[in-house]
């Protein structure tokens, strides 16, 4: 057997794209468990159904584009996209809603742009925004958390998904919704009147956020991504909220802690903002990119028409990522710092 001739390096690290994706999937587990505990099996059913649709779409797209199926399906990227989208969808969403969302993510946002690695926009967030604009009612129908209403069982969850007509949905405004509608009460009173606010960010929400935080920190520890973008986003949102808190008047935008632990802040910071493909890549770029999303989330939440804003903020920032990259090239070894000569 002749000796193989390969150019260096001959060794390779342990990381592979499939493993990166597997890690991300694994890191969502604690959050999913907490969501299931508080809101029932709805999210889990979303994820399972969404996963099936995602794989089917991926296979279809690969077949149409004449790519080897097995090789690309193994990269788990479609599953990651659908899982992240389904976590963001309201539990007990009807099957078609999920299918449309996932198909938009996988086909429209990813394959239409050339497949994994070529998509300028975060696919999960594209799917989310398509749904939010097309089906605003369904998209804001969130279930009440355990303690404030009946939590449906697995069978009911399946029923809600696949036979929506026969499922009698109970919904309740999310804390962000309530805050948005408020224009007369001091925040302290608002909290008193609306039990769903819980301690900091809303019953269920705050624990889910902490669980996603745990998953995110694990990913950070595993070096799947760096701290820059998530931390920048969280710092920016905290700073914005702190600046406009005005101690809880009726016009207040909510406390920093509320903004951190409510809605999709933490989930977004560690699972959406960190999507490598559509974000800025250099270290400084990631800081800018993250901070921009944080600021946008706050602005859209408080001033915009939609209660939560991570999806919009991320898509807007996706637009800017190439520019950020262009202007934040790191200083190469042996080159003078800008301004030095």
């Amino acid at each position, binding site marked *: 057997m002749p000796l193989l001739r390969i150019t*260096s*390096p001959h060794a390779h690290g342990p990381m592979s*794209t499939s493993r990166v994706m597997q890690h991300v999937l694994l890191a969502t587990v604690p959050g999913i468990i907490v969501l299931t505990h508080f809101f029932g099996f709805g999210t889990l059913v979303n994820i399972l159904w969404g996963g099936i649709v995602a794989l089917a779409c991926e296979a279809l797209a690969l077949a149409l584009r004449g790519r080897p199926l097995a090789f690309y399906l193994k990269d788990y990227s479609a599953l990651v996209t659908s899982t992240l989208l389904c976590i963001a969808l309201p539990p007990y969403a009807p099957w078609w809603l999920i299918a449309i969302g996932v198909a938009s993510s996988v086909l429209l946002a990813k394959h239409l742009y050339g497949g994994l690695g070529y998509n300028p926009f975060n696919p999960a967030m594209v799917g989310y925004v398509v749904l939010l604009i097309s089906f605003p009612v369904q998209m804001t129908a969130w279930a009440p958390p355990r303690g404030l209403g009946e939590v449906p069982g697995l069978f009911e969850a399946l029923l809600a998904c696949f036979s929506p007509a026969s499922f009698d949905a109970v919904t309740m405004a999310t804390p962000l919704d309530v805050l948005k509608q408020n224009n007369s009460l001091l925040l302290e009173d608002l909290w008193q009147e609306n039990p769903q606010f819980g301690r900091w960010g809303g019953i269920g929400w705050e624990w889910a956020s902490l669980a996603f935080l745990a998953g995110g920190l694990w990913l950070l520890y595993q070096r799947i991504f*760096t701290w820059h973008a998530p931390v920048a986003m969280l710092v920016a949102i905290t700073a914005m909220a702190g600046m406009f808190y005005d101690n809880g008047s009726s016009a207040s935008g909510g406390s920093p802690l509320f903004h951190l632990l409510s809605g999709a802040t933490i989930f977004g910071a560690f699972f959406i903002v960190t999507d490598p493909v559509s974000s800025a890549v250099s270290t400084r770029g990631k800081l800018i990119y993250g901070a921009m999303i944080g600021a946008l989330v706050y602005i859209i939440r408080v001033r915009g028409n939609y209660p939560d804003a991570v999806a919009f903020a991320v898509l807007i920032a996706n637009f800017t990522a190439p520019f950020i990259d262009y202007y934040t090239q*790191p*200083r190469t070894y*042996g*080159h003078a710092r800008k301004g030095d000569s």
Partner: protein
Amino acid sequence: MRKIFGFHGGIHPPENKHQSLEHPIRDAGIPAELIIPVSQHVGAPAAPCVEIGQAVLGGDVIAEAIGVVSVPLHAPTSGSIAAIERRPVAHPSGSEALCIVIDTDGEDRWRSLEGVEDYRTADPAQLLERIRECGIAGMGGAGFPSAIKLAPRNPIETLIINGTECEPYITADDILLQERAQRIVEGAQIIAHIVQPQEILIGVEDNKPEGIEAITAAAAGTDLQVVTFPTKYPSGGEKQLIEILTGKQVPSGGLPADLGIVCQNVGTAVAVRDAILDGRPLISRVTTVTGDAVSKPGNFDVLLGTPMAHLLHLAGYDERKNRRLIMGGPMMGFSVPTPLAPVVKTTNCLLAPTESELPTPPPAQACIRCGMCAEACPASLLPQQLFWFAQGKESEKLEAHNLFDCIECGACSWVCPSHIPLVQYYRASKADIQQQRKDQAKSDYSRERFEARQARLEREEAEKDAKRAARKKAAEERAKAAATGEGEEDPIQAAIARAQAKKAAQTNEGSGESELEKLERAVVTTQKRLDTAQQKLSAAEAEGSDLVDALRTGVEKTQSKLDKAKAALAEHQANHSEAPAAAEEPPVDAAQAAIQKAMQAREADAQKSPQEKARDQLGKLEQRLAKAQQRLADGRAAGEEDKIIDALSASVDKLREKISETRAQLAETESA
């Protein structure tokens, strides 16, 4: 404790160093045959100066340095020269190169060696010369001639002895630190005497506790400082090591000497010590043989030119287990085509891994822009962007993103989760861009040459006009004078005076070059041009190229020029047959003889390898260019005829072009 600085990026691949550190250095003995490539260093290959069949003693020079950036080669032991021919070698660029093959006699007889008595009182220039004569080139990897590195253009503040050895698997430097610390220290002191630094640092990664202990003990009481720092690949890269130890970065495109720093590998330090104290040329080195396909990994003291197979055999090589053989480490080493290739000055390691140890890379997936490569890059580049541009062949963007600051360390490829062979793309792009630059330079050069020629022709035309006008005026004046009967003189006397003046002028010219030689030269160069033009023409005809017509006109023109030049020569010979210079000429047709000589030379050339030829030629060409330029200048000054000036300047131009081509060729073989 000295302050240690960090550097950006870096990775922590499995070290795999313990396997080869279980035994002390073993002697690899004398193989039956030594194969010594003439190019083992950066720069011009050495020129063989032995003949086939010639007996050599250990330490005899077998190939001489050509030019400044070059080192000679020595016989590693006694024997006879068996062949000087192309053999497979381990080189990233190609698989064969000119080698001197020695049949060893096993007696290991040596020429007598003499060290420098007291280097402390010796002149650094003399020591440098000795280092060069002993054939020492950097042994850490690149193989740059040490004597050049040790004669920097700036004063040196810091001398760094590099014992970092950050590549996985390799332990050649580690074992030197452990077993030959004393010699490293002596070598470092000699180098310090040459470059006179303020401080001498020995940098070692902290994964070599035994080496650190040994070198610290050996350095005790000297002005050497042993500096240790955390293990991270590629901290042994010269630029990274400098940043770690001094916090400074070598300017892009610059040299460490620009910062007042010189780096030498520990192996080189030992070689310098042996050269200066013992007079021993560089004929052996320590090489690590390791990987799961050898059962007895370890370090060997091996003669340069030893076939790798010999060394592998000593280490218990099982070729069935081995899919690729790597010279160097797993990060920056390159695959060797065959174990028949010899060990050279830069062979720090032979790695024979099994498939499970270093698996064949899987097909690449899409870049997910995860940025892991950027995080790992010690040069702070954006490898994913470079990859993107490399795919699109966007040379300008590649250069704007500092492709040429990539040190090809492989850290980016190592971390890339999508298994993209990034470094491979960068190498290819660098080669492409270099080619583009070369082409660009060439076309710029032709344009400049054309413009210069144009300007020259105009100038000369103007000068001639002026002269003609002056002559006419003089004639008119003379005619006027004759008409008026003034300045009556004997016409015979005048003719004699003119003839004498002419003769005197000729005798003067004789010290430079005779008319005859010039004419001969013109014939030869024109003949050469005609030959090439004809070759081109027939090639074009064979291809059916549209250039045929243009080329044919060119051939015709050159032919007529040749005829003219020959005619001029013949005329000159006829006219001056009684002149002393011509009398000494052999009775054969001078033009024919010159042509024959040129032809013979060309044939001899054709038998040599292209690389050798290029090297041979460069020297010759440069000499010829100098002469040709001189001749041209003389010719112009003497107001020679047009066609002669033309012929001369054509030959100057041609030489220039050839020189740049040859340089390019050489640079290519060397940089590859």
